[in-house]
């Protein structure tokens, strides 16, 4: 077990280092090295899911230190459920990138491969860590690699939007660090299990202040209203594969940390504020998408809108709501990534992602149209796709909690999402061919790799719809664990178990 957890963090980092050392060498060896690292991490995360599901929460004390002093890694069901989805997506995107690398728009594979490795390590660490400071470090790991991935081509638009992106996220990181100081001053620890014991005993003012502070920190990372302005401008400027990873994973890490922190610390009082933020986020995101005329920009606004749903489930602070949020995160990651990959395919065929300058693609490339239709309908929440199950469970939790306004907002945002998907469909796939569309010259093998990777991700999201029942049960179980802090605290502070699991001691 400890070996599996170590693999998800260390191996992608080693692969990244190897990729950088080999950057001027044979591209096949280099790409094979980074891809192997990513695949190993994804396989290990599936193993973690397997063993957590069988044996319950697993804890590793790195270096054998006690939780007061050292770093603990905690694989509970919530982490074990979300991590494999995230890591498999990174593998698929890297496959797509290997197909795309010969085209002019593509990211430089010598850089993007190793950076994706660093990002993978950060994602694994963020989900498995048991203390707030390691969470901060893994956020930095993810963000630093994302800064470089976003701006490494040095195009004008990338530098312009990259500045907003970096400054906003850097501000959130600084607030995170200040928040850590507050938490340490108030509770004398940064270990989450110990905090879960100590924070509920603090004064209400201090406790809720800490909760609100971290809501702002994680909310900025997750692009929750009104802290989303950095997202829709920066995402569309990056190369497709980079945007696909960002849209699929980064904001979700913010939501993940929020679910983890706010349920564990019992911040139920923040529910009403979160609910209002969730409602505005979904409506603003959907309206913003409707106003755009570029595939990638429409999809970027959808990211914001969907964050609203995930926040809504958490804000209800009921087991059903949190289960809905978890299911929504699991459904959203592959679907959103696929949509951006299809955006990349469209860009490849039309030479642009602008709706005004494309048309008639359904006739010329029916496969691309099919690859778009499935995730688009799923994102809008139509049955029988995974989006329907996810939205249903969140909305049902809202009805159970008798929060009518948020349920109405969720339904309206769903309809608006469908409307903006129709807009892409009409603009890109139907209509007449536009004169002067200039496909980016692509070798057939490269095209097959790109379409194959996209199809693979769609199969993944269809599997999620097929096993929606099992996933719903797992999410409910994970949510029950989250609602009961003792389920987290117990294994972390339990001494006998640690002696067996200590690494390097």
């Amino acid at each position, binding site marked *: 077990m400890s070996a599996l957890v170590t693999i998800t963090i260390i191996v992608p980092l080693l692969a990244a280092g190897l990729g950088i050392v080999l950057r001027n060498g044979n591209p096949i060896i280099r790409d094979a090295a980074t891809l192997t690292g990513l695949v190993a991490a994804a396989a290990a995360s599936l193993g973690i899911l397997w063993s957590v599901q069988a044996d319950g929460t697993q804890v590793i004390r790195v270096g054998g230190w006690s939780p007061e*002093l050292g770093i603990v890694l905690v694989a509970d069901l919530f982490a074990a459920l979300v991590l494999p989805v995230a890591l498999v997506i990174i593998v698929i995107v890297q496959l797509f990138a290997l197909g795309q690398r010969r085209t002019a728009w593509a990211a430089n594979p010598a850089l993007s491969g190793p950076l994706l490795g660093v990002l993978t390590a950060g994602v694994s660490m963020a989900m498995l860590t048991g203390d707030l*400071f390691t969470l*901060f*470090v893994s956020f*930095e790991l993810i963000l*630093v690699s994302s*800064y*470089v991935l976003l*701006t490494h081509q*040095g195009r*004008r*638009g990338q*530098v*312009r*939007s*990259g*500045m*907003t992106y*970096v*400054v906003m996220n*850097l*501000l959130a990181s*600084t607030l995170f*660090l*200040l928040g*850590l*100081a*507050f938490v*340490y*001053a108030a509770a004398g620890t*940064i270990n989450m299990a110990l905090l879960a014991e100590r924070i509920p005993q603090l004064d209400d003012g201090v406790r809720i202040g800490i909760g609100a502070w971290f809501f702002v920190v994680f909310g900025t990372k997750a692009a929750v209203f009104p802290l989303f*302005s950095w997202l*829709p*401008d920066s995402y569309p400027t990056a190369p497709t594969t980079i945007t696909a990873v960002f849209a699929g994973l980064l904001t979700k890490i913010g939501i993940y940390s929020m679910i983890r922190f706010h349920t564990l610390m019992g911040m139920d009082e923040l529910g009403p504020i979160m609910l209002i933020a969730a409602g505005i986020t979904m409506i603003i995101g959907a309206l913003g998408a409707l106003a755009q005329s570029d595939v990638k920009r429409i999809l970027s606004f959808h990211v914001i809108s969907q964050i609203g749903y995930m926040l809504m489930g958490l804000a209800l602070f009921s087991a059903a709501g949190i289960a809905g949020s978890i299911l929504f995160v699991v459904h959203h990651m592959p679907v959103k990534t696929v949509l951006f990959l299809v955006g990349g395919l469209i860009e490849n065929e039309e030479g642009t992602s602008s709706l005004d300058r494309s048309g008639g693609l359904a006739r010329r490339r029916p496969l691309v149209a099919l690859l778009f239709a499935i995730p688009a309908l799923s994102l809008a929440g139509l049955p029988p796709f995974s989006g329907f199950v996810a939205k249903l469970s969140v909305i049902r939790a809202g009805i159970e909690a008798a929060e009518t306004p948020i349920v109405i907002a969720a339904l309206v945002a769903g309809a608006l999402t469908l409307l903006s998907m129709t807009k892409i469909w009409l603009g890109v796939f139907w209509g007449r061919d536009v004169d002067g569309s200039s496909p980016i010259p692509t070798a057939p093998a490269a095209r097959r790799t790109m379409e194959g990777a996209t199809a693979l991700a769609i199969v993944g999201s269809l599997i999620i719809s097929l096993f929606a029942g099992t996933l719903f049960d797992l999410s409910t179980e994970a949510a029950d664990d989250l609602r009961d802090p003792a389920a987290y605290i117990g294994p972390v502070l339990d001494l006998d178990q640690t002696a067996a699991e200590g690494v390097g001691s």
Partner: protein
Amino acid sequence: MSIALLVTVGGLTAVGLYLITARSLSRIVFGFSLLGHAAVLSLLTAGGPPGEAPIADQSSPDEIANPIPQALALTAIVISFGLTLFLLALARRQQALSGDDQVEDDLEDRRIAAEDAADGLEEVTE
């Protein structure tokens, strides 16, 4: 908890926040350096009363300062050092592209501004 440290943290935060609202990226870099110092100082303040250097076998556990916030602060300093370098590289790139290091307007802002300007023009001609 020392008042002097608290006042310093407050001052650094205020000046840092003021600087990062600027348009010029070089001012923003200074702003983040100051904010980073504020965060590190508040971590140290959170660690409790000052004491001897926490070195094993040389000082007694009763007299040493709390080493954990110091470890956290060191890590934070290293991270903020790297990020400052990245911001400076970004500013340099912006300068190479446009001649200055100003943060430019959001694409959406510019589109709305352009539409407003067009509307204004129509009103004038009517």
